[in-house]
């Protein structure tokens, strides 16, 4: 049982969704990103996604694009990623990395898996790597005991959901809407249907992301999903500092704990 499996066993036992918070490594600087991530861990994020700032983030909306640009301009380097992951682990948090594929491919898939595991990272979320091209990553993640979190989308056919969930471990990342990352007024109505369609094919926990920004939305999503993923809203708060990030995290953590209707 991986540490992510243990987490979801616990949150399922408590009858709530897990709170999963995203912040980019190196934003606005490497040192400050460690403090921001520590704040989310301390304030109740069950799992953090450490984002890898990449030059061509095609799945991200303006908020995370701008954060990646800032991190890169401030000198973020790939080796800093492992350092940031380690800081989360040392804080007592659980960290996975969310990254576009090329930096992993370029570093060497097995070497990346090895170094991520050594830093205390638990797995990878790969927005532009599907199981179709994932054989090298599947081998490396098995070898180094990492979870591989693949994505499903409202446009995924049942056949593709079956293929994706069969290759995934830890949890499945369900993108709530068709579109890029960014806080939205409402979480897509497609989300609940997608979670239901995903559960037909797997017992893995299903986390829902894209658009969650408030405690109320977290409660709403937590009612039907195993995990509530919050990214852009936290990144926006990161501009205001650690207190703002901690406050939003607390609100979200309270949201996922509201009794399910």
């Amino acid at each position: 049982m991986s540490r992510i499996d243990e987490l979801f066993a616990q949150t399922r036992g408590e009858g709530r969704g897990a709170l999963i918070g995203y912040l980019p490594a190196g934003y606005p600087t490497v040192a400050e990103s460690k403090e921001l991530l520590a704040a989310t861990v301390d304030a109740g994020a069950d799992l953090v996604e450490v984002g890898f700032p990449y030059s061509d983030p095609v799945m991200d909306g303006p908020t995370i694009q701008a954060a990646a640009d800032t991190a890169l301009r401030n000198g973020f380097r790939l080796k800093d990623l492992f350092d940031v992951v380690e800081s989360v682990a040392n804080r007592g948090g659980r960290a996975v990395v969310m990254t576009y594929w090329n930096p992993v491919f370029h570093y060497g898939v097995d070497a990346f898996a090895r170094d991520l595991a050594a830093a205390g990272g638990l797995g990878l979320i790969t927005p532009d790597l599907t199981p179709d091209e994932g054989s090298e990553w599947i081998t490396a993640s098995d070898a180094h005991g990492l979870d591989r979190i693949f994505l499903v989308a409202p446009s995924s056919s049942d056949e593709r959901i079956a293929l994706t969930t069969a290759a995934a471990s830890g949890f499945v990342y369900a993108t709530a809407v068709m579109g890029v990352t960014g806080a939205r007024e409402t979480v897509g109505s497609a989300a609940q249907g997608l979670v239901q369609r995903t559960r037909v094919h797997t017992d893995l926990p299903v986390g829902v992301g894209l658009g969650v920004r408030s405690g109320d939305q977290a409660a709403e999503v937590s009612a039907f999903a195993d995990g509530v993923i919050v990214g852009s809203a936290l990144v926006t708060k990161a501009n205001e500092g650690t207190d703002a990030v901690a406050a939003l995290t607390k609100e979200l953590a309270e949201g996922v704990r509201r009794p399910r209707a």
Partner: protein
Amino acid sequence: MTDTTPQSRHDPDARGHFGDYGGRFLPEALMGALDELASEYDKAQQDPEFTAEFQRLLSGYAGRPSLLTEAPRFAEHAGGARILLKREDLNHTGSHKINNVLGQALLTKRMGKTRVIAETGAGQHGVATATACALLDLDCVVYMGEVDTERQALNVARMRLLGAEVIPVATGSRTLKDAINEALRDWVTNVDTTHYLLGTAAGAHPFPVMVRNFHKIIGEEAREQMLAQVGRLPDAVAACVGGGSNAIGIFHGFLDDTDVRLVGLEPGGKGLDSGEHGATLTQGTPGTLHGALSYLLQDEDGQTIEAYSISAGLDYPGVGPEHSHLKDEGRAEYRAVTDDEAMDAFQLLSKTEGIIPAVESAHALAGALQLGRELGPDGVILVSLSGRGDKDVDTAARYFNLVEGV
């Protein structure tokens, strides 16, 4: 994934791999649309009505077949070798881009989609897309880097005249790469109604094979014309390579003619040592960008390096995956031509033959001058003159100081 059936030994495998390259590296949300496109394209290829309609548009609208023109006065500067120009510049909209655009626009109608998005660098693909959308009554949105909207303001006006919406892209390097990023973001949001009409033989499967096949006619015509007009095949075929669509189209006419050298000319910008270039195949390493594994200009962390070229159409840090395969196999060779060499060839063709080429195509012409000197007087070189230079007159005026006060 819906598998496509390879039609020839030059086709990729069922999942779009040319050797080690190609494939699909895009978000899951787009996999359904890519499957639909692959399957619909497969069916269309075997549908006589579709192919007849495509042929009808190529001949009755685009103006195919394009001419093969010998360039003897230009060739005097190429060691006496004979140089023949495949005149894609004479196509409607002024470049080879119209071939692919008509094919994909017909596919869009066939899929029941009503909206087309496209990226453009120099504006040639954007103009061609806006044209096909006007012809076939499709809504059209073109993403164009802000730097390029400034370099190619006239093409922005052309697209708007044709009824397209042009969206300047202000993110990243504000050039072609970022226009593609924005188009992908639009596509993932609107994929139900929208076809992404990608302009080059790159990206995720099935784009590289599909775009290549829509451009194969360049090489097929050129091969026949060479035999009819010259009585032999060329020693070398020269074509410029940004994403690589005109090159892959003309190369394919000669892939099985193993005595014919296939030479791709990349933008060497201010020189390879300057770091300011777009010479992906000569200077890059394998990586994933915009959906495929291919050669890529990237730094030691796998971050994309911004390309540079005087030519907006070649200013791209990636390249189509089939070119990467042809390079590794040794079937095609790639070299870089600097801005200055390309602009010299640009001016030379204008003055010696009365043909103003696109700055992109001028890279192929500069390559032909080099090849001619290497081959000597017995050499015969076929050049893909992929586009005309009307859009580049402003660039040339600045470069050569042709107009007072510019």
